[in-house]
């Protein structure tokens, strides 16, 4: 399976029009944190979304936006033109991130919106990414990640936009890609360097996780 660019309709559900906003307890906790100070650095790995920009900058922070799957797409394609299957060993997968990916100084990022992006990366690359995130995040900072249900073999990446301090617009964007399966235990192992994790299960069986650096 290849890694096509995200579609032109990113953020809109298949039928068109904006997706309805739904409450997110994990994001609620994140926004409580963001509302407690000003002048922080927030990173969104899902790409630039206007409503997220308005929310984060409205809280008085800077927002760095980068679509991680677009950035890493060529790297993954080069290493494995057929794509990475969830049930296949990823020996050929790149193990190092490009130097210019999340090139922040150590401990300089206060919050990170990872959404479901980690699940679309081969294990080595995802581990390298988590190591880099751990290095660039400030102690006490928060990371929000989402994980699809363990039984789901493939899914389209989620396009997540902030509606307000408690709600998110979430819609699938693009073609389905293989997912690396995660369960609660493997998520805990994945973030073992971090201080704590808190899990929230949504109605769609998405696992939302707030990770504290």
């Amino acid at each position: 399976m290849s890694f096509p660019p995200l579609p032109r309709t990113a953020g809109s559900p298949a039928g068109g029009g904006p997706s309805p906003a739904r409450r997110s307890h994990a994001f609620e906790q994140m926004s409580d944190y963001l509302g407690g100070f000003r002048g922080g650095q927030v990173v969104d790995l899902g790409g630039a979304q206007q409503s997220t920009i308005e929310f984060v900058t409205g809280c008085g922070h800077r927002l760095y936006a980068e679509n991680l799957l677009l950035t890493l797409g060529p790297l993954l394609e080069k290493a494995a033109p057929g794509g990475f299957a969830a049930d296949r060993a990823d020996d050929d997968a790149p193990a190092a991130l490009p130097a210019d990916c999340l090139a922040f100084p150590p401990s300089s990022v206060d919050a990170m919106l990872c959404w479901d992006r980690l699940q679309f990366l081969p294990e080595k690359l995802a581990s390298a990414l988590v190591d880099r995130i751990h290095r660039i995040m400030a102690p006490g900072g928060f990371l929000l990640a989402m994980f699809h249900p363990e039984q789901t073999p493939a899914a389209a990446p989620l396009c997540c936009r902030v509606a307000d301090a408690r709600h998110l617009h979430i819609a699938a964007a693009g073609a389905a890609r293989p997912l690396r399966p995660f369960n609660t235990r493997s998520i805990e192992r994945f973030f073992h360097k971090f201080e704590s994790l808190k899990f929230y299960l949504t109605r769609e069986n998405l696992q939302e996780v707030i990770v504290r650096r």
Partner: protein
Amino acid sequence: MSTYPTRTSDIGSVRAGALIGKSLEITGEIRGAEDLVIDGRLKGDVELPEHRLTIGPSGVLHGKVRAREIVVYGTVQGNLEASERVEIKKHAKVVGDLKAQRPVIEDEAYFKGNVETIRAEAPKQPAPAPAQAAPAAQPSAAAAAAGGASAPGQSSGAAAPRQENRKG
């Protein structure tokens, strides 16, 4: 570079200003006091503190920009700073940091960088009416104004997260 009204349906309104045409490639710094449309290639910084810079659909800019208003339909690699607004239109590609009062990034635009808003200069307050308002009201009003731009992230009431703390 020529100065004449530019009419491009993609770019929108008809404005008097300078145009760097599609076939032009320029290396160097541009400073000016008129609107500018770049449809060619420019390697260098642009400074139009009181005016608008438009990077047309075929325009490519490598350099920093400081202007009153910046609209990008093409490609920019460099930081953009506008005293009013920066707009990155769909299909545009920008790698660099944005700083503006109103940054707008349309869907389908590619953007990689930091976004930071700058506050609009507060309009000058009229002198307070003498002896009308109670003096004690002023500090609280000021405090309300200071806190009035309430961060959307501040939620009312205590969050009640589920107690599922786990340590990895």
